[in-house]
């Protein structure tokens, strides 16, 4: 188990290193000079040069890459070109919106998908199954931003059950904050839940055909007991993979959803930063997202080992 973890950790570090180079390189070729954007249309050339050197933009690229990486490792993400505040602080503030949103959506989609998938698998071929599967087909086909628009139209503008967007802030209490994240979380969660439910169902159906399920029935377990005690945990293995992948989809999807609901999250930050050429922020946020995805996949790998003892003493 330890060795398995260490090996995964090593490949995690390599992945992160390669990812950082790729991100840095892409950002480097981006057109648009941050200094001239900051100073506006009437800036003088000497002021610009002064600002560039203040921002460290006149250093050689290699130097800047290592400065960036070194800074990140010590928690210093640099200073935002436009806001002039530490990037780390900005990201931390936004993370308090994006992360709860992703987790909220993940929880919602799991809460919807697991029972739906299990229900459908247990009633394979019956009307209940067909209904759930039909709904999931639809769910998979709906673009989440369109769904978000519809949610706003119905629940915020017409029914006024929810705010149309914006974030209350955690300082106003947990409930108002969650309330303002509810519609976005639903918009993010439902399409994902549809995928998850489908995976859950098909994985469970595979398991239901396994010999050990028959063994379980022969012991006297009812269909239901066999399903819950022996089926679900085994079916969880492929579902975990999807769950891991979904986290990255949720983070990415939140970029668009945050636009629709004007939530001050990482997605909005990245869009704003791209449009204002606040490259250091773009760089750091993208790196953070990649880091989150890689770490989540690492955790998923570890979770496999928890679910599947066969992996525990693997190297």
């Amino acid at each position, binding site marked *: 188990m330890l060795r398995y973890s260490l090996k995964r950790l090593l*490949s995690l570090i*390599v*992945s992160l290193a*390669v*990812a950082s180079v*790729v*991100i840095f390189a*892409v*950002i480097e*070729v*981006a*057109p648009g000079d941050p200094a001239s954007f900051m100073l506006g249309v009437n800036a003088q050339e000497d002021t610009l040069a002064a600002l560039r050197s203040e921002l460290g933009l006149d250093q050689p690229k290699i130097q800047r890459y290592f400065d960036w990486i070194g800074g990140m490792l010590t928690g210093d993400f640099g200073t935002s070109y436009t806001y002039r505040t530490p990037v780390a602080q900005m990201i931390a503030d936004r993370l308090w919106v994006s992360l709860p949103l992703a987790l909220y959506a993940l929880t919602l989609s799991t809460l919807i998908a697991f029972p739906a998938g299990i229900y459908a698998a247990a009633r394979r071929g019956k009307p209940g199954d067909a209904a759930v599967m039909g709904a999931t*087909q*639809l769910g*998979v*086909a*709906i*673009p989440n*931003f*369109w769904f978000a*628009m*519809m949610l706003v*139209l119905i629940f915020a*503008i017409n029914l006024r059950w929810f705010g149309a967007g914006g974030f209350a802030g955690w300082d106003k209490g947990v409930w108002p904050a969650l309330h303002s994240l509810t519609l976005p979380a639903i918009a993010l969660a439902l399409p994902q839940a549809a995928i998850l439910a489908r995976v859950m169902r098909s994985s469970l159906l595979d398991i239901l055909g396994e010999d050990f399920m028959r063994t379980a029935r022969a012991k006297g377990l009812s269909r239901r007991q066999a399903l819950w005690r022996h089926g679900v945990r085994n079916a969880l293995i492929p579902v975990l993979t999807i769950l891991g*992948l979904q986290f*990255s*989809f949720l*983070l*990415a*999807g939140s*970029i*668009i959803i945050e*636009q629709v609901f004007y939530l001050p999250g990482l997605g909005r930050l*990245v*869009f704003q930063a*791209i449009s204002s050429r606040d490259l250091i922020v*773009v760089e750091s946020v*993208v790196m953070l*997202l*990649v880091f989150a*995805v*890689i770490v989540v*996949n690492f955790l998923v790998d570890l979770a496999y080992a928890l679910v599947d003892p066969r992996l525990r003493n693997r190297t």
Partner: protein
Amino acid sequence: MSRNLILGGFLSSLVLLAAILSFFWTPYDHATLNIPAKLQPPGVEHWFGTDHFGRDIFSMIMVGARTSIAVALIAVGIGMGLGVPLGLAAAARRGSWLDELIMRGNDLVFAFPSLVIAILITAVFGAGAVNAIIAIGIFNIPVFARVARGAALSLWQREFILAARVAGKGAARISAEHILPNIANLLIVQGTIQFSLGILAEAGLSYVGLGAQPPTPSWGRMLADAQTMVSFAPHLALIPGLAIIVTVLGLNLMGDGLRDWLDPRIRVARA
């Protein structure tokens, strides 16, 4: 043939036909503005109504299908064209440094939140259909590589591959002659799924303004344009949304149906 396949095939060919037909005929010219006639609800004159510039939405949907299909199709082509050979090579040299390299490379691409990178690519190299295709295509490569590798690996364990090796055939030849035809079904099914995901991705990118640029009509941009008008002209958002849903639903149903239909296990049982 299953109900899924028939329904899915029907919906998909409907969209495809609309796209092809749009080259020859649309009820109105999709690009002609008629501002006095803006925001008309669906009716006899304009079946799907008109948009904020008075353009005919039905015509725009037809031409938009063209954009969606072209972007998604080429992106799938990129993914298959590069991913499948990579996957086959990795499987043929299982456990070698090549396999390791290809799979790590795949993991890496997977680790990037695809939308963020697509945004980055289009932000850096400019918004537009070509960059959208590249951005979507890049993320198709590991998908196909993974599917091809996984399926090929299990085939490499089969005795008929061993028999081919005994007959002196090399890895490349075996991959082309034995592996590829046997995983083709899977690739087709995955292809339909990626195709539908490509349509969604294109819509998403266009929605944030990074996909096809005006005046090329695109469903995603139609939605973006409709955003502020849903409350008084819901058809502006409903119709492109439904177009996307119908297309993706059709493709997914078709993918599911194809999977069942092409599954050799079921086919053998039927024979």
